[in-house]
């Protein structure tokens, strides 16, 4: 697959703070790529570097095989990008159609009008062309911003937490809608968010960013089930970290033996277990005690305290419930577990 966006050892400092540190990343053409990370991790800075709204202090950025930052500088207006902001940044003095036509400079009037109609249709707002931005709801404003960014047929669409201002219900609907629109327009997308559910729903691949560094890049399933480091494991989804020690080619833990993965004897490790990796079995002689339960509709998430005091999270899909205080034992559902050595 051809590379759309390439960042090579890019660094950006604000004063003494390194917002982005030596970042190397490739986004393929036509891909929906999500940069995921906690607030302040450098993901918006990365996006602004790609857009040309910031200049990197070191490193190089290429868009579709052309250097745009580094040895050469291409200003944002010449990069062929579309930008969607968290606050939409619609021009308040222009109508919806005028906002969308804003980027169609140099187009023939007829063609521009056709293109505006086309993208407004794509986002489902053909009826709102003559309204002003303040007359629209949040979700509609969001879609106008998307239409405006898509109108000049950018090769790359950059989206900075565009769904974070919508209420929960609308946000879920807009995720599916957004992915459909972007895929239909065949644009490469770089999307920035701190919301892992959003990342899972949208992304072809996810890059996990923290403290200005990229910790892992991969498909959503890969990131979830095979996190590359403890930070990623902890940040993405629920996880229990169970202490263990390698003995006789196996890892001994409070919950039994796990495959040793070829680690040297005596190594101290932590085992990451997702809630679905453990089965809860009610057992009056069991070592664990239920301390808490969250009902989540299709399943319940339990917290179980082991004799050592470690709290373990496990989910249970059964319709019956275990009240706090119930004694249980925990059985691994599979032998594969992610292991991190303890430093």
């Amino acid at each position, binding site marked *: 697959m051809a590379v759309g966006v390439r960042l090579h050892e890019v660094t950006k400092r604000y004063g003494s703070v390194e917002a982005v540190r030596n970042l190397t990343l490739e986004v393929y053409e036509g891909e929906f790529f999500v940069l995921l990370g906690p607030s302040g991790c450098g993901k918006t800075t990365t996006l602004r570097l790609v857009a040309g709204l910031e200049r990197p202090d070191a490193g190089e950025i290429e868009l579709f095989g052309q250097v745009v930052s580094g040895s050469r500088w291409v*200003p944002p207006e010449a990069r062929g990008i579309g930008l969607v902001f968290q606050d939409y940044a619609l021009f308040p003095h222009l109508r919806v159609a005028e906002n969308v036509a804003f980027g169609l400079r140099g187009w023939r009037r007829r063609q521009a009008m056709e293109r505006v109609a086309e993208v407004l249709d794509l986002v489902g707002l053909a009826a709102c062309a003559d309204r002003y931005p303040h007359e629209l709801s949040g979700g509609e404003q969001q879609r106008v911003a998307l239409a405006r960014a898509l109108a000049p047929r950018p090769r790359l669409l950059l989206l900075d937490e565009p769904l974070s201002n919508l209420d929960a219900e609308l946000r879920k609907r807009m995720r599916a809608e957004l992915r459909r629109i972007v895929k239909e327009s065949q644009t490469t997308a770089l999307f920035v968010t701190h919301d892992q559910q959003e990342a899972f729903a949208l992304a072809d691949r996810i890059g996990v960013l923290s403290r200005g560094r990229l910790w892992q890049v991969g498909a959503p399933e890969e990131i979830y089930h095979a996190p590359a480091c403890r930070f990623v494991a902890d940040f993405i989804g629920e996880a229990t970290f169970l202490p263990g020690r390698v003995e006789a080619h196996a890892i001994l833990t409070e919950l039994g033996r796990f495959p040793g993965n070829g680690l040297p004897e005596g190594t101290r490790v932590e085992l990451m277990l997702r809630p679905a990796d453990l089965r809860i079995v009610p057992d009056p002689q069991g070592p664990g005690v239920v301390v808490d339960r969250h009902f989540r509709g299709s399943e319940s998430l339990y917290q179980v305290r082991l004799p050592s005091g470690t709290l373990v999270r496990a989910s249970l899909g059964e319709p019956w419930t275990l009240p706090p205080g119930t004694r249980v034992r925990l059985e691994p559902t599979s032998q594969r577990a992610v292991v991190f050595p303890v430093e």
Partner: protein
Amino acid sequence: MQAAVREVSARKPLPWLLPLPAVLVGAGIFVPLVYLLLRALEADPSTLREVVLSSRNALLLRNTLLLAGGTVVGTALLAFLLALLDVRSDLPPLLTGLVGTLPLAIPEYVGAYAFLAATGPGGTLETLLGIRVPRPGGYWGAVLVLSLFLYPYAFLNLRTALRGVDPSLEESARSLGYGPWAAFARAVLPQLKPALSAGGLLVGIHALADFASVGLLRYETFSYAIYLQYSAAFERTYAAWLALLLIGLVAGMLWTEARVVRGVRVARTGVGAQRVFRRATLGPWRWAAYGYVLALGFTSIGVPVVVLAHWMLRGPGGEAGMAGALAGTLRLAVPTALSAVVLALPIAYWSVRYPSPASAAAERVAYFGYATPPLAFALAVIFFTLRTTPALYQTLPLLIGAASLHFLSEAIGPIRAGLYQAPPHLEEAARSLGYGPVSAFLRVTFPLLRTGLLAGFALVFLSVAKDLALTTLLSPPGYTTLAVRVWGYASDAMFERAAPHGLAMIGLGVAAVGVLIRIERR
């Protein structure tokens, strides 16, 4: 926040006493003006036609409009570049802010007098540097002087608007294929239209009201003609008609401004956090920018101070009666500013906590009082008191009352801003924590409001200290203020005697502006 406020107003009944001050203010402003209109209509129609449609009036109208237009354009040009440098460049904002604000401390007529005293034979430039510069005067002199001392009104409006423009608008335009200048012109400039026109309106109102500087610079306008009518040949009907024509001009400006702003939408959409602009690095342009800011600061602040100091040193020294004039200014400005704040508080409270068409109208009445040229308003007050309560005529309480009504609008703005920072939820939280209504107000709302009250006080104090129109027409016989003295001496070309009074005025003004700048920077 607005929505939350509205919700509260729907639940709580309006305390019936709250609109009372607004009603009194409305009566105080409108009754004299209506009386002025009735007086003017008493004249018999043939003289009326002669008086109103005279060729002299046509000349005055032309002069006044040209002056207002030229000053609005002049201030806009001076202020636009300065505001741009203040908000968007890497020049120190303290410098640009001071240059943009400090000229407020210098009344236009003191500026006019300083420019006259600096130039011509025996002027400061000739005595100190040996260069003789012709005295400014006429149309261009008046436009130059008024622009140099009124541009802060345009600057403050433009700066606020520039700071409020969402940077992502410009960035969107960049991403959509516009270069830096085109993006600024297409995405930012339209957002500044309301600020430009609001600033222009303020400048225009002041240019129309000014009679002292145009008098010094020998350029005749409506205001100057009214002043001459009053001070020399007091022909009442003619004066009343001139005043009405002047009010008509202001009404025309208010209407034009409303039309310009109509349909302009600048509200931000979306609710995310707004980033601030990155300041542009000027590079080699830095020196040109510094040159502009320093030259502007020097002409509008440096020149008056240096020239007045020079003339004071040349003067006899030990100016008698200065203390009296200073006391006169304080005895007028302090009670006026206090009563304006006291009147403004309930009006602002009404419009913020119980917004309704009526409360909006109350604010607009106050603004109308501010826009009414003070000479016209003073004439109306004179006519009305002479007819109804002659005992009040030419007394200090009447002057204080008229000045509080006229400048009220200046106090409402900052107090309203303060009230927005103290939403009713805070007071309700205090109530839920066991405080009564009064102590909740005193412990929560009042401290948040304090800076607003102080800013309102300082603004009105500054305006009253600079005022000549109301003071000249309404003060008790023999009552002097610094303003009256400066203008009196300066119009008799007694520059050395005017100088210490002028410097004292600038000192008072700088103190008031200093308070405002400190509040603003917090």
